[in-house]
């Protein structure tokens, strides 16, 4: 089975699958593990039938907000899509990972909740000297409300603030 280091998402890939918008409460309730971590490595391989490419993303966990922290401080996420050799498979709507990036992850059974919705890129805001969790991935969201409104999915938020919100939701 061919395994290759994934060429993931340094440049844009369209995210287009049709998704129902999940708010923070639903993301939190759906996840069995919520962590903030750094992407250590990504590997891609064909499945046994040579029909689909899967990516395995290793995360070094920095904070654990829900679920037990991993023993060795690392977790692995496996999802559809990636590049092996000349073939690139894009599953529109899946989260994209770049080695070295930090992300807030809502996980369930080693997968990202709600495809791209359960991943939020985290970056340092030097102006305000705080970590910011950016918006959910650019998925095609459907909602029963006004067009384009999908809760807080499109706004950055201070990680400290988000941590308190999530932990409150977990407690409840």
């Amino acid at each position, binding site marked *: 089975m061919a395994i290759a280091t994934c060429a993931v998402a340094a440049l*844009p890939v369209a995210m287009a699958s049709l998704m129902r918008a999940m708010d923070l409460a639903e993301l939190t309730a759906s996840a069995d593990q919520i962590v903030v971590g750094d992407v250590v490595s990504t590997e891609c391989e064909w499945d046994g039938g040579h029909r689909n490419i899967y990516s395995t993303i290793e995360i070094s966990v920095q904070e654990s907000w829900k679920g037990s922290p991993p023993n060795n401080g690392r977790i692995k996420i496996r999802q559809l899509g990636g590049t092996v050799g000349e073939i*690139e498979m894009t599953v529109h709507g899946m989260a994209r990972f770049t080695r070295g990036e930090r992300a807030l992850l809502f996980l369930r059974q080693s997968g990202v909740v709600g495809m791209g919705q359960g991943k939020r890129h985290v970056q340092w805001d030097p102006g305000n000297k705080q970590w910011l969790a950016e918006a959910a991935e650019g998925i095609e969201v459907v909602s029963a409300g006004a067009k384009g409104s999908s809760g807080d999915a499109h706004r950055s938020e201070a990680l400290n603030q988000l941590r308190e919100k999530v932990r409150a939701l977990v407690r409840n």
Partner: protein
Amino acid sequence: MSVRTLALLLAFGSLVAAPRDAQAYVREVTNSGLPVAWHYPCLTMQVYPGRPPQILTADEYVAASEQAAAVWSYPALACTDIRLTIVKATQGSSDVGYDKRNVIAFRQDTWCRQPPQIDDAGMAQPDCYPSSALAVTSVFKNAKTGEILDADIEFNAVDYSWGDLVDKPGLVGTTTADFQNALTHELGHVLGLDHNCYTITDAQPRLNDNTGSPEVDCYNPPPPQAVADATMYPSVELGDTLRRDLSPDDEQGICDIYPHRHSVCPPLPSNGGCSVVATDSPDGGQTAMLLMVVVLLIAALVFLRRYLRV
């Protein structure tokens, strides 16, 4: 005007609104930044409507698929060469994956990718999508050339139902989505169009649109109406039906990627596959046909020479 017609117009005012303005379009690219496209303009997608009971019949799903395909295709869109043909699949599997077979399928028993993934021990492992996903589109392409090689669309008929919200506006506000509306958008991706605007983590760096300008934001600040109304806009209401028809930007995008070159698509072979005779000359494919005749004549001459030597 009947009460029914009036209700339709009230419920779907956007369908009778003034023509949509033009703004720009954005192409999908590979991880290395190459724009993606099919290399041949004749495409076939096999529709597996599933089995009743559903809101629409199998034939109605096929008809809606044909309408969604037609708006992207010649001759309805005269400036393009694309001919996206829908074939109703009555047998065979609706499996998706890299098999050079383009599939539109409904998942009704479990919302999982088919066939299941085979692990290293040779065991089938179900690979299921979240219930929040209404439809999933996967595309295989050549990372070095940008050529699209295979595309599949799966619809979640486990957690949602799919109907015709123009014909049945009473379904708006339920868990029923408009099938033709969703499929038209997904077919835009199948053909190589990206969303027409930028979300904060959608692209690093931000893509340029066809005018060379950075694509506009999808949400903050609110985009121009032409962007929000396009078929390739990324966010819609569940009851949306506006995307059934292409905006001027959608049309421009597909015609720039696949300009009309008078290609001729031969009739579909019995297996529903696709072949193509393409030519840049405005002779309706006659040059290419002539070339094929020449090749056949040469092959016949080679055969005869060998035969005469024996």
